[in-house]
Each structure stands twice: as structure tokens, then as C-alpha cells.
């Protein structure tokens, strides 16, 4: 195996063990708990009343604008991660030093313009 991956092995082992632990817990619950399903128990909970219509209706999801905004900003964060990590090295490097700060200002400026545009178009208005 590539030695670069060696530090991540414990994290993978933890993940696998925890999946096993959760499975054991649920299995124990299944063994210890009673199993007496009734008609009332197995209908969807709607504050005691009979469920009205199906829940998977088409509904207006106001949040899709938020999701689009999130995609843009998450990509921005993805670009900022390496920039924040390499910033010091870039400042020391003559080829990068002039753009290390100004480049990020320009990048953030463009993304902020996008945010302003979305705001003016009403993405933040929740009625």
C-alpha cells in the first residue's frame, strides 16, 4: 500500500468498527424489544389524526435558491482551502507574491457580485 495512506488506516478502522457497533446495537434492540405491530402503530404520525394525503407531494422548495448559492460558495471555499494553506509559501515565492493577495481579492469580489445579484433578484426573500 502507498505509505501516504498509512495515517488514514486508523480512521478507516474506526469507521468500520462503528458501523459494526451500530449494527450490534440495533440487533440487540430487535432481540430485546417486543414486536407487536398494529395497524395504528404503523401509519405515519400526524399528531394523532389520520394522515391527510401522501407526504411526497410536489412542494415548492424555496431552498433550491439556497442550494444553488451554497454550491457557488462551497466551490469558493474549496478554492480558499489551498490558498490559505499555501499563502505563506506563495508570499515567499517571487513569481506568486504579487498575485497571492490581489488574486484572492479579485476572486472574492466576483463571487460577492454574484451574491449581491442573487440578493437583488430576491433569493433571500422568504414570504
Amino acid at each position: 500500500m502507498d505509505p501516504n495512506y498509512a495515517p488514514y488506516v486508523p480512521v478507516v478502522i474506526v469507521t468500520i468498527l462503528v458501523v459494526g457497533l451500530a449494527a450490534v446495537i440495533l440487533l440487540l434492540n430487535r432481540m430485546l424489544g417486543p414486536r407487536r405491530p398494529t395497524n395504528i402503530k404503523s401509519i405515519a404520525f400526524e399528531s394523532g389524526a389520520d394522515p391527510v394525503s401522501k407526504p411526497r407531494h410536489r412542494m415548492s422548495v424555496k431552498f433550491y435558491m439556497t442550494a444553488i448559492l451554497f454550491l457557488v460558495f462551497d466551490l469558493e471555499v474549496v478554492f480558499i482551502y489551498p490558498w490559505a494553506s499555501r499563502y505563506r509559501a506563495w508570499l515567499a515565492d517571487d513569481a506568486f507574491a504579487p498575485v497571492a493577495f490581489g488574486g484572492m481579492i479579485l476572486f472574492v469580489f466576483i463571487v460577492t457580485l454574484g451574491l449581491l445579484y442573487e440578493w437583488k433578484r430576491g433569493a433571500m426573500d422568504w414570504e
Partner: protein
Amino acid sequence: MPDTVVNLVDSPALGVLIGIAGVMAALTVNVLFLVWLERKVSAWIQRRMGPTEVGPFGMLQTIADMLKLISKQLITPRHVDKPLYHIAPVFVFVPVVAAASLFPFDEHVSLQNLDIGLVLVFAFGGLGIVGIFMAGWGSNNKYALLGAMRAVAQNISYEIPLILSTLSVVLMVNAMGDANTNGMNLAQVASMQHDKGFWFVLVQPVAAVIYFIAALAETNRAPFDIPEAESELVAGFHTEYSGMRFALFFFAEYSNMFIVAMVATVLFFGGWSGPLLPGAMWFFLKTYAIVFVMIWIRWTFPRLRFDQLMSFCWLVLIPLSILNLLVTAFIARAV
């Protein structure tokens, strides 16, 4: 130099297993204690007694509750999306435990000291949201679906200021150190605060405040507990879950609270660094101090409205955190 628990014993496999067992035991004990603490503090704020019956000061109440939950019926309602419904509790539970194994509890005590520790913690945090939406969609319940929608919108929005505020610390750590310094490495961030002799909350107060607010929202805690607003949505995304399935969600929620407090401890409050007491003790003392403030806020402030929540994030926190990052970069360039 023993860098991790894994290197302390001769056999690496044994070291890994001891470390994993230690992390999992520590997390479980802390979460059980945390649930008790939340109930006691809320009782204290509301001038009640809280749990008193089981064990000294009711400390064993959570264990009693766990035993009760494990003997309850696992109800699977009709018309649920079976694969999603069954996987969701595990999917929410696993990432938080995995994330908890990444922290440096003392100077040389961590399960594995990763160079991208901070990134991984947030990556695991992001996975939990997928599990929450699986639960909400799979449950075939209107309350669950609405709660999950709100949880997703809220979590993805507040993830951005959360990460941006920590990145300004990363940038600062890199600028203050030498070429080998890595601000994403949680152990190095803590050591640097120990060596410099001050906590980063003093030089990055804006980032610390933004981080704390965003962390409250990420853990779905009041005043940002709109995804689980009991008065309107019953229990939000886990309405249809019973027994240990519910307990897994509950455990994940409290572990999450503990994890964001641990990140804050490492990034802003010096991690294990402190006089007299051993490092791990300081680490947990600081974490519990932050957790206590989170509980205090939950039982003091009323819930926000959803539009207030979203516009506060997009129009205040995100611009402010970007500005903070740029100012940090500017100062790092000038120094």
C-alpha cells in the same frame, strides 16, 4: 518521539486498537455525561431539580434511559422507503464518532495526527447532513420531510461561515510558523498556541464569534433548532424513529455538540495547553466550558424565525467571515 498513541506500544496494530477503544469509550462516557449535564443545567436555569433518582445526583439517569430504549419496540411504519429508513440512523451516527477520533487530546495523545485533520472533521460533519435527509425523506412523514428540508438548508448555509472562520486561523498559523507548519494539523495548531503563550481567540476574536454562532446552527441547537422545533414539527427528521434508532440520532446530536466544542478548543482556546494540570484535563475542561455556554444559550434565548436565520447567515456571517479572512491575509502579508 512518540507522536500518537499508536506509537506508544511496540505493535502498531495493538496501538491502533487501544487508541480506538479509548476514543470510543471516552466519547460514550462524555455523551452520557453531557446529556445529564444538559438536563441538570436546564433544570437549574428553570429552577427545577432535574434528574435526582438514579445514582448520585441522578447521574446514572442517561444509562437508565438507554436501557429503557434498548428494550423498546423498533417500529417501522408502513410506506417508508426501507433502505433509506434503515440506513439513516447508522449514517448519522458513524461520521461523528469517526470525527471524534481525529483530535489531539494531549501533547502527544491522539489516535492519529493527520495533516488534514481539520478538513476531515468538516468532511465527516458534512456526511451527517446526508443521513439527516435520508431519514427525513425515507420516513414518509410530512413533519420529517419538512424538518429534514430545514436541516439541510440550515446546515449547508452555516457550513460556509463555519469553514471560512476556521480558515482564517489556518492562514494565521501558517503565516506565524515556518515552512513546515501546517495549519490544518490540529495538533500543530494547539502546540503553536502553547509555544507562543497566547490563545488564538485573542488575535482572531471575530473568527471565534462567527465560528461559535455557526457551530450552534450546525448542531441544530437553540436558538437555531428550527429543524426540530417541537412546537411545530414534533421531532423533525426523527419523528418516525423509535428505540435505539432514535437513540443513535440522539447520540449523534450530542457528539456533534462535543465535536464542535473540541474544534473550538483546539483552534481558539489553546487545546491541551495550560498550567499545572495535565494536558488532557485542560482539554476537557475547556471543551466543557464551551459546551456549558452552548447549553446556557439554548435555555435562555427563544427560537429564531427561518427567514431571519437564513438572511443572518448569508448577509451577515458569510460577508463578515470573508472579510475577516482577507484582513487576516492582509496583516499576514504586512508582517
